[in-house]
């Protein structure tokens, strides 16, 4: 039992060892995990890890199975132990699984970290590459700097060599100068000697000249002597010989003078030379101020040209020296620049060392870039807007170019429009005023006309009145006349009576003379009667006058009355009209049967025919009949409605058809009428005559397809060109034919007026 248990334990140990081994391998896997974390291949690791675990489990299971197979004895305990171990192992496995999970999570974290790291690494690499580039550039600059340094050194060396050469040349020049000063001194000595010689020669010549003049004087005295001799005797031959002697002497004199002039010229030339030399010396002395040439100041009057050459050379060397100095300065500057560049590069290198700063810079730059992109977009948009506005402005300028002349701009244009509108409004107002004035005047005119008519009528009536009065007056006058006549008659009668009375009195007197008093009394009575009669006449006359005045008054009153009557008559006429209207209204109302319910009531017999008919109907007429009648009514109403509808539809169709035809006419230029059945009459908008029309016959196709149109011959079709007809007959296209006709007619109207 113990053995077995030992065995068991040993087996268990084996198992655990095995397990631990496997775990080790797994942990090895776990160890490798860290390595993997740096790499991107994490998933594969996990899968493999899990694979390992499952394999391990299977291996353990197998081991247990083997163990169980091999050792079947003491199975209970063993199994129990085995189970325990198994349970333990399973717990362990669970723990391991947890661990694995934890590992996985950490792994994931690590992977994310690794990703980040890789990213940073990439960035680092990028930065490194940048750094390398910068380094390269710095190295390049360094090499360039070194090269330039070398070049500068070379140049310096060359310069030094050149300077050496120049110094040598200068030495040569100084030695030459020395030689020149020596030769100059010699020249001075020689000049002094020549001066001495010249003074001697001068003296000699002056002496000779004195001698010559003495001779001349001698010869002249001889000539005078000879002339005296000739004058004393015939000494012509002697004179002639003397003349020749004089001539020869003159020639001698001339020769001598020439000699003198020669010597003089020579002297002058030597003097000139001397002065030249002096000048050269002076210049030399001036040039001597140069420190290099100080030592060279030696009297050397002999070789001027050499001095000049040397001077020129010296100047050249000086210029060369200066140029070299300039070059030196330039190279120094270059060197300094290179040094600066170097320092810059060094600082850049230092900056490169700081990756984070670069990163930040990078980010800020990216942000800036993004912002700049936005800004650029905005800028582009604004540019487009600007262009659009410019175009608009141009258009507006084109449109309102006229107004731009008036220092335009839309605002001023608007102002002008507003001003014009105001003016327009004022004009409209004026027009309204004028029209109102016109209307007022018209109404006044009509009023005046009516008044004129009235006045005319009143005038005529007055005239009539006047005529009447005149007639009356005439009548009265005739009456008056008649009265007067009567009075006259009465007067005559009275006279006759008087006469009678006189005769009677006379007769009485004749018969009875004492009755004179009676006669006189009689006459007095008569006189009284006459007087009375005259008074009556006067009264009558007064009456007549009164009548006349009354007449006139009456005439006036009558005219007034006439006026009154007229107005009254008008009023009455109006009243009559009003009453007639009222009457008509009332009659119409009466016709309707209106009545005054306060005074009148309407009665009818209760058993009147209509009620009887109703009763009859209700009794006799079937309900069906009534229904039928009602239906009939209903149907009649329907018919009415439908008729109305039909009429309305007809109207609408007519309108629409007209509209359509007008549209076709306006768009296609042809007025289309359906002339007869299936015949279409087309008249062009540009037709010259009423008879210029096209006639098409429509033949419907069987099977509901679109039918054919055939052109029928008219006078107009005969007049058309063959080219136009060709569209129809060869191309078989009616629309093109029609359009060609249109174009033809249009061109005829437009271009050949």
């Amino acid at each position, binding site marked *: 039992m113990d053995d077995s248990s030992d065995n068991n334990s040993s087996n268990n140990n084996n198992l655990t060892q095995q397990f631990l081994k496997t775990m080790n391998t797994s942990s090895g896997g776990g160890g490798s995990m860290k390595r993997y974390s740096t790499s991107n291949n994490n998933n594969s690791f996990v899968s493999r890890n899990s694979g390992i675990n499952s394999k391990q489990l299977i291996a353990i299971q197998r081991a247990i199975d083997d163990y169980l197979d091999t050792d079947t004895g003491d199975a209970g305990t063993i199994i129990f132990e085995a189970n325990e171990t198994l349970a333990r192992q399973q717990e362990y496995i669970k723990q391991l699984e947890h661990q694995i999970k934890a590992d996985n999570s950490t792994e994931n974290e690590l992977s994310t970290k690794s990703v980040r790291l890789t990213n940073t690494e990439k960035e680092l690499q990028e930065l490194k590459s940048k750094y390398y580039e910068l380094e390269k550039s710095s190295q390049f600059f360094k090499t360039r700097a070194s090269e330039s340094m070398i070049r500068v050194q070379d140049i310096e060396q060359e310069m030094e060599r050149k300077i050496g050469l120049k110094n040598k040349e200068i030495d040569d020049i100084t030695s030459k100068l020395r030689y020149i000063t020596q030769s100059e001194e010699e020249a001075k000595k020689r000049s002094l000697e020549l001066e001495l010689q010249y003074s001697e020669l001068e003296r000699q010549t002056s002496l000779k000249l004195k001698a010559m003049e003495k001779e001349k004087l001698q010869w002249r005295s001889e000539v005078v002597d000879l002339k005296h001799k000739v004058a004393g005797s015939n000494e012509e031959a002697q004179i002639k010989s003397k003349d020749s002697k004089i001539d020869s002497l003159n020639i001698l004199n001339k020769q001598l003078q020439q000699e003198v002039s020669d010597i003089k010229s020579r002297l002058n030339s030597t003097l000139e030379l001397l002065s030249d030399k002096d000048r050269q010396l002076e210049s030399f002395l001036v040039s001597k101020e140069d420190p290099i040439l100080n030592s060279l100041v030696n009297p050397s009057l002999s070789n001027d040209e050499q001095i000049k050459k040397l001077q020129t050379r010296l100047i050249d060397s000086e210029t060369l020296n200066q140029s070299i100095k300039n070059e030196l300065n330039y190279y120094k500057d270059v060197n300094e620049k290179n040094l600066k560049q170097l320092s810059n590069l060094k600082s850049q290198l230092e900056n490169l060392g700081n990756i984070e700063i670069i990163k930040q810079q990078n980010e800020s730059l990216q942000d800036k870039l993004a912002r700049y992109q936005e800004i650029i977009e905005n800028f582009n948009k604004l540019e487009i807007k600007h262009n659009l506005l410019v175009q608009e402005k141009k258009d507006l300028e084109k449109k309102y170019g006229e107004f731009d002349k008036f220092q335009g701009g839309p605002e001023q244009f608007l102002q002008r429009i507003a001003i014009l509108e105001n003016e327009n409004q004022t004009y409209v107002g004026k027009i309204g005023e004028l029209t109102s004035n016109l209307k007022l005047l018209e109404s006044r005119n009509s009023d005046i006309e009516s008044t004129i008519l009235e006045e005319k009528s009143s005038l005529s009536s007055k005239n009539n009145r006047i005529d009447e009065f005149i007639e009356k007056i005439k009548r009265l006058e005739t009456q008056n006349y008649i009265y007067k006549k009567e009075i006259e008659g009465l007067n005559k009668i009275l006279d006759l009576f008087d006469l009678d009375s006189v005769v009677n009195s006379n007769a009485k007197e004749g018969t009875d003379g004492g009755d004179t008093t009676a006669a006189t009394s009689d006459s007095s009575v008569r006189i009284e009667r006459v007087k009375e009669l005259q008074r009556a006449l006067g009264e009558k006359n007064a009456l007549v006058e009164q009548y006349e005045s009354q007449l006139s008054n009456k005439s006036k009153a009558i005219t007034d009355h006439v006026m009154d009557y007229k107005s009254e008559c008008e009023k009455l006429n109006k009243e009559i009209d009003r009453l007639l209207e009222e009457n008509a209204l009332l009659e119409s109302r009466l*016709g*309707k049967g209106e009545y005054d319910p306060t*005074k009148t009531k309407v009665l009818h017999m209760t058993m009147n025919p209509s009620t009887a008919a109703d009763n009859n109907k209700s009794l006799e007429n079937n309900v069906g009949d009534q229904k039928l009648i009602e239906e009939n009514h209903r149907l009649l109403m329907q018919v009415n409605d439908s008729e109305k509808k039909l009429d309305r539809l007809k109207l609408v169709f007519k309108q629409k058809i007209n509209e359509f035809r007008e549209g076709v006419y306006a768009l296609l230029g042809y007025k289309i009428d359906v002339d007869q059945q299936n015949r279409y009459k087309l008249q062009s908008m540009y037709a010259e005559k009423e008879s210029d029309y096209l006639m098409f016959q429509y033949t419907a196709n069987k099977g509901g397809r679109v039918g054919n149109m055939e052109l029928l011959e008219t006078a107009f079709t005969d007049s058309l060109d063959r080219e136009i007809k060709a569209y129809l007959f060869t191309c078989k296209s009616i629309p093109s034919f029609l359009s060609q006709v249109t174009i033809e007619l249009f061109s005829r109207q437009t271009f050949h007026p």
Partner: protein
Amino acid sequence: MQAIASKSNITLKGSTDIVTEFFAYSINTILFQRGLYPSESFTRVAKYGLPILVTNDQGLKDYLENVLKQLSAWLLADEVQKLVLVITDLVTKEALERWVFDIQADIPKEGEPQRNKPEKEIMNEIQAIIRQITASVTFLPLLPNACTFDLLVYTKKEANVPQKWEESDPKYITNSQQVKLRSFTTSIHKVDSMVAYKLNNE
């Protein structure tokens, strides 16, 4: 009749008789002309120098007799203003025609001299009206098949309503057209006639 014709003096009673008789014949003429009753129910009678068709229908005869009797009573009492014959549609009860006879009475007072008007003249006037009624068929619109009529009497407010009578609505025509006919007078009663009809051209 002969007696009236010979006389030229007109009394209230005589005038009332003339007017009532005129109403009887004119109503008969209208009913015949407007075809409210079958034409075979009418018989020809000579009156006013005209052939006038009078109904044979006993019911109608009785009705007219009743109405006219009452009317003559009102005429004597001077209580009647109008007699109206209204033709209505039997189904819709709509008034289609109104024959209006306006009556204006000028009743002589006590002690007033008797009025004279030759009988012949009055008859001529009535004849003219009957002729117009006959002729009015030419312009009046056709009546629909089923129509009936009613007689309305416009009386004074104080007139008493006899048995078998009642107040009625005036049966107006909406959208009507009037034609005035002639009038006649007996010097006591003046009768103006007029026809109003419904216009159909909506």
